């Protein structure tokens, strides 16, 4: 469902991704790990279509469509979802009003039946409960005054409602205590299924104890320098990234890609 080939991308004119390859098939869970500044969020933002994140070479296909040609909302309507590393606060726009607009648009585009406001409210409350977020948060401004953990739960809550085909989670684990981590992991696991792809971007392997990935990739210097199974995460945990990044492992990504 996601096919990234030799992707080059710049942020505000600065090259960050330098030949990245990744294939995600339905039902698979991939983890992308890598040191700070290696380009993980850049990849997530490029895929979601953020302004100033420009594809300069290669391609990223989602269900055969070139993402670079699509507006961010079109990508979401096709079933792509990004849980942000830093969810933005939007005072004055209530969470509920926001969910209503998002779900109306996405469900209509996907030919799903429209939810009336009673159904929407019920579903939203259920989703809140699933991530242990008080339903009062539905009335507040989007992420307005939420703690770091509440913002992350709010992202997962939205994801549960939007039922994306492909979910990208950018450091959803950072800033969460162990209870919150388990709650969030449970939410993500509940979404796992044969039709869905999940890409977890994370700095630590901690999250991977709870959401066990099928594949683990190491991103460094704007490309994937190593790929493997879930045991690769444990190796990284023990040895850090140094043993991978010190040598010149430039093109391992392509060969080790197990997909």
């Amino acid at each position, binding site marked *: 469902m996601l096919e990234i080939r030799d992707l080059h991308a710049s942020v505000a004119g600065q090259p960050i991704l330098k030949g990245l390859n990744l294939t995600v098939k339905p039902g698979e869970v991939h983890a992308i790990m890598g040191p700070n500044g290696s380009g993980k969020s850049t990849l997530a933002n490029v895929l979601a279509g953020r302004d100033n994140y420009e594809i300069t070479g290669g391609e990223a296909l989602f269900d055969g469509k070139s993402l670079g040609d699509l507006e961010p909302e079109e990508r979401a309507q096709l079933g792509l979802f990004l849980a942000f590393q830093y969810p933005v606060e939007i005072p*004055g726009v209530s969470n509920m009003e926001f969910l209503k*607009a998002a779900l109306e648009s*996405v469900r209509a585009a996907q030919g799903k039946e429209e939810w009336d406001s009673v159904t929407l409210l019920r579903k939203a409350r259920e989703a809140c409960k699933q991530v242990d977020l008080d339903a009062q948060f539905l009335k507040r401004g989007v992420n307005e005054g939420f703690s770091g953990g509440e913002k992350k739960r709010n992202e997962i809550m939205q994801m549960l409602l939007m039922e994306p085909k492909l979910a990208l989670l950018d450091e959803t684990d950072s800033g969460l205590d162990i209870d919150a981590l388990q709650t969030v992991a449970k939410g993500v696991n509940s979404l796992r299924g044969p039709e869905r792809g999940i890409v977890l971007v994370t700095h630590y392997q901690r999250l991977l104890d709870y959401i066990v990935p099928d594949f683990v990739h190491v991103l460094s210097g704007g490309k994937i320098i190593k790929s493997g199974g879930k045991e690769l995460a444990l190796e990284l945990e023990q040895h850090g990234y140094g043993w991978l990044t010190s040598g010149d492992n430039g093109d391992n990504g392509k060969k080790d890609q197990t997909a």
Partner: protein
Amino acid sequence: MSGDTALNLPEDLKTRALNNARQATPVEALAPLRQDALAALEGTAFPGRKTEAWKYTSLYALTDGHLAARAEGAAPADLPTLSDYRLVIVNGRLDEERTALPEGVTLGRAARRLEGLTTPFAFYNGAALDDAVTLDVAANTDVAAPIQVLHVAAGDAPSHCNVRLEVNLGTGSRLTLIEQYLARGPVLTNAVTAIQAADNAHLTHYRLQADAGDSLHIGTLLFQQTGVSRIDSYQLMAGNRLRRNDVRAFLDKSGAELNMHGVFVARDRSHIDNQLCVEHRVPDCTSNQVYRGLAGEKGRAVLNGRIHIHPGAKGTLAELSNKNLLLNAGAEIDTKPELEIYNDDVKCAHGATVGQLDALQQFYLQSRGIDAAEAKRMLSLGFVNELIMGLPDQAVADWAQPWLAAELGGRPGADEEAA
């Protein structure tokens, strides 16, 4: 813009205003006021291009001849009902059939001379009035429900009307007043509203300006807090061909409190000029002003917020905040706090900003499947929503929310006009 060379617009306006005033049908109850105002008008110049207080607002539109005719159109049938009690004023004249007032409020048809109003349009208003409405709220009366005053102006050709409303709150009285302006057609409403509050009076005031785009409005709102009183004023304004709102507030008794909240929206090619002036003349009064402005397409908005703290006004607390949002590069907002402080023992805070929609917020909404136009609409509504959510009367909020949402969505034809 070359009108001024062919004719002298300020002179022309003055001549017309004087002629209109002299030829107006006499009204006995208004005779003393009209005489006074006419004398004042004779000694006052209309603003021209060099007049500082009119720097951003040209009266060129009035060369269409609005002052040459009185508005005579009929009021639309479907007027909004925000309360059981209401007055309908059509082209400046009270519609007696449609008057419903609660107990404790007395209706009068005279008007008084107003200290502190010295603009030519306010003088012209006084000098050429056909009618005036005065509401006296009896002492210690808690008026049961809001009074809605509908100012309707209608006409098919350029014309104008003079509208006058005076409200006097007696000692210990409480009132909610909803002033709603609904002009239809190329009509200039020249309005004066004067509100006086005695000791322990509390007024909640709304000024809802939903006039049609081709109408014009030049208005003055005067608050005279002669007693230890509290006024909470909520002003919601859509731009039209020319909207000029002067607000003057006098805090004249220690302990008086004034809170003003405003939202102004200038879309398409519309114009809004807010001139606020709060006068702290005695010690220990509080004023708090929060305005949010929004302009899109070729809309133009102005806010000048003057706070004048007189030498004797120690212990004053005065705040003014004006945040503005520009939806695109063709729109313009000029905002300026103007502080004149002649006492050291005061707390005065002010802030004015002009910004654009936040790109990251917009991306966040779009990343959830919301298209760009809808995302912009949601964000601009969010920008003013805080004030709308804070409206204390549900009936007003229920009316204001869809109205503002429509204003923020852009009116039909907005794109062609802006192109």
